């Protein structure tokens, strides 16, 4: 295994009853990289993200994240892996409506056993870094889309994951909010955070990623390094 590889995927295949979502994908993501996965709808890019996050299991092939072979883990093992190994950002934020912004973020640390006070302190630090400290006591329903996604990013970073996964992180945002989230992801990558994002948005890919992978019909059709556009 490549020593600085955070993600190492070998010959990954995922079949559903009536279709093949992934067909022999192999991929390595090194520490500090920002990789964008692009492709048309139904190409298998979200399935690929799910495999890396341990949200779904492959039909064959292996997924090793930060040295952990996900195929060897049971459901509880995968849950424990997700707690500390990765952070996830979703298109639709997926915040709990009945927790305040701060409690949503602190929750991720509390699941690892961090005491509530300590978790909230760490969450407050992240709120400060992300510029949303004045929104900490607001419930998700009263936050703007951009604010919700920042809260989601804060939650994803809460346990200092080795890998940040983002699934269409700007897909549900207006252009201004989308810009802000792009800046945020870029900043994170520039301070060393490994990033893997799935997107339709070419602007997001070229702006945040150093490598773009195009998936078509469950296979990697093209892979290219990009010059980031500032």
């Amino acid at each position: 295994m490549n020593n600085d590889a955070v993600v190492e995927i070998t010959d990954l295949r995922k079949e559903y009853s009536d279709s093949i979502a992934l067909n022999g994908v192999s991929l390595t993501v090194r520490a500090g990289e920002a990789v964008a996965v692009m492709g048309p709808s139904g190409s298998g890019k979200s399935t690929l993200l799910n495999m890396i996050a341990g949200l779904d299991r492959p039909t064959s092939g292996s997924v090793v994240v930060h040295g952990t072979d996900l195929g060897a883990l049971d459901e509880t093992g995968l849950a424990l892996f997700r707690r500390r190994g990765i952070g996830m950002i979703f298109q639709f934020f997926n915040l709990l409506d009945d927790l305040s912004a701060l409690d949503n973020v602190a929750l991720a640390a509390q699941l690892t056993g961090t005491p509530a006070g300590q978790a909230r302190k760490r969450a407050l630090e992240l709120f400060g870094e992300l510029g949303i400290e004045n929104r900490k006591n607001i419930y998700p329903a009263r936050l703007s889309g951009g604010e919700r996604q920042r809260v989601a990013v804060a939650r994803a970073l809460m346990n200092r994951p080795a890998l940040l996964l983002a699934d269409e992180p700007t897909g549900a945002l207006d252009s201004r909010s989308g810009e802000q989230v792009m800046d945020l992801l870029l900043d994170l990558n520039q301070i060393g955070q490994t990033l893997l994002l799935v997107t339709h948005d070419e602007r997001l890919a070229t702006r945040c990623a150093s490598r773009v992978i195009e998936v078509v019909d469950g296979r990697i059709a093209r892979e290219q390094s990009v010059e980031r556009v500032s």
Partner: protein
Amino acid sequence: MSAVWTAAWAAVRRRVLQTIVIGIVVLASTATIVMALGLLESAAAPFDRAFATQQGAHLSAAFDPTKTSADQLKQAAGQTVSAGPFPQATVDTSASQVFLGTLTVAGRADPGGPVDRLTIWRGRWATAPGEIVLNRTPGGEGGNNLGFEISIPGRPKLTVVGFAHSVTGSADAWVTPDQVNALQPTALQMLYRFPDAGTAAKVAEGQKSVTTGIPEGALLGTLSHLTVKDKATSELGVFIPFLMIFGILGLVVAVLIVANVVSGAVVAGFRHIGMLKALGFTPGQVMAVYLVMISIPAVLGCVLGTVAGNFFAKPIVQDAVEGFGVTELSFAPWVNAVALLGMPALVVSAALVPALRARGLPAAQAISAGTTTHTGRALRIQRWLTTTPLPRSVSLGLGVPFARAGRSALTLASVVLGVMTVTLAAGLTMSVTAYDSAVRPSYDDRVEVLAGRPPGLPVMRTPEMGEPPNATLSDADDEKMLRSLPGTDAVLAVSQLETEVAGGTQNATIFFYRGDTGKLGPRVLTGHWPDGPGQVVAPSRFLNQRGLQVGDTITVQANENRTELKIVGVVLTNNEDEIFADWSALNVLAPGTRAHSYQVRFTSGTVRETFTAAIAKGDPGLRVMPPRDGSSSTGVIIVSASVTLTLVLGLVAALGVFNTVVLNARERRRDLGMLKSIGMTPRQVTVMLVTSMGVLGVLGGLAGVPLGVAAHQLVVPAMAHAAQSDAVDVLMQVYHAPALALLALAGVVIAVLGALVPARGAARLSIATVLHNE
């Protein structure tokens, strides 16, 4: 096929779990309602039902055959519905080895006919000479084994071939008409049914019409159905409060659960309603789609539930009302009609209110209403919970019920009623058990020894006993011998006398005790044990039936001897015709009488068989009775019916919880997926959802136990009152702290049982599917 039906059928097929849940809940609820209504109906008029089933006689009359003839009697009856005349003999069985008292035996060719259609509940009808059928209540106390013989000197030997029951009580036994002639009949029995016999005056009017033309003095005696009913309902009315409370509880639980399930299903479908509107369905069509969607499983569940209710509930109700003589139970048509029509109506009503709300909502609003609502209070509670040191899965679970306050309140109410039922049933079981062990001790630590025949009574015998008892030692020597045996702890000598109580219609048996009455005598509830010749203690049933109280004096007569006895206390015994006196009183009423039995308590560690052998060695004429069975048939019926009803109602309450968790998990699919995506384990998801119901279980337990105790404190005195007894402490004071704590846990058990399966299902939810299905 209309668009409404197409959309409704598609919705049913798409929501398989919800459809199944509605179907099962309606099925279980309908079955419960059939049982509840069946209980209420049976409890409302058990005697009337049995009387109607048997075409009971409004009037039983005995005529002197020397003064009138069968033809005369038939002619006098005219158009009145009647049966008979049946020759009637009186048979004294005191000389028989099996003592059955004095039997009124009628000669009948068959058990049917236009009046007094007898129910043969064991064996068969008497068809040949030498056969006899006894009148016994199904499930009543006493041995019900067929084949034993009644042999009376100078009369034909009679073998018991069947047990039948006559609600009218027209006779104690029946033989063939030929056989009764050999028993020397002394009367002709006629049984009448009148068009109107609701009052004593109407019965008297009927009696006048059927005896017109009969020679004067030919009518020996009559028995009105009103008299029979008074006696029957006073003896069996103990069941009525019990049946009614369970019937009402069953109804309320079923209605609550159905309302919860259906309204929850409609609320969960708001988004679907909005989408239909967006497609162009009119508000009326949308509402129709939803009502049809709910009605399909509801109607199916209702029909199956009615069938299941009849199938499963009848044996339970049968058990409960068997004591009334009802052996062929069929629920009145209205019970099934109410279930078949009422349940769908209830379901549609429950669906209508939220569906009407959805009907008026704009499409976009209806679509967004499908997610969980969040009140300020719910958010405040959730915020407070995050500050507690509880594990996060637990604190999140504790906050769930507050997000859907209405649904949680209905679920809580069903858990409360479930716990209330469990508490009441447990209390009733404890009361019945405590009462049984108090009035019918199983005598694990003692033996009953027979010494001879009580004066004026046959000797008590059992097949195991062998030869009848006939003590070889004197009374004093027997007592001395028993006291001297190794292992003897206490000895009580007993004799009994049948006495007439002046001023009343009922006689009484007086038991005279000598020896260790404090250790072996009945428990004195009030007053004191007799300590002189003129004193007696009695059970509350004896006092209540005669309007007596402690301090009153009764006059009793045995043979030629009469004496006054002052009631000095109330004892805890069950038989209303048995009272207790000191041995010194026996010397007044029947001087020189010896003890006919002894109770001997042995010390711990003594082997019963060894002790019994030692008694036989000490006096070979003594006979040791087999150990008693401490239970009563009434107690067994109450306990078994309580347990069954509790299981059914507990299951229905758990189904309510099951449904709530299904709905909550469905609404929170996205939240659950997100929690799993950030590392919540399947076990933690299960814990969270089970905790969400556990909190309702705890609250339900805390509220349900006092309500159950309160119901017990109302029902038990009513049952005791119906039995003309008092609500004594052993009946009332049955709940103790450990039992109450355990009962409070019933709420948690109901909640956890109901929540576990859907919670585990939710824990297995595919995160990828949920989070990307927006």
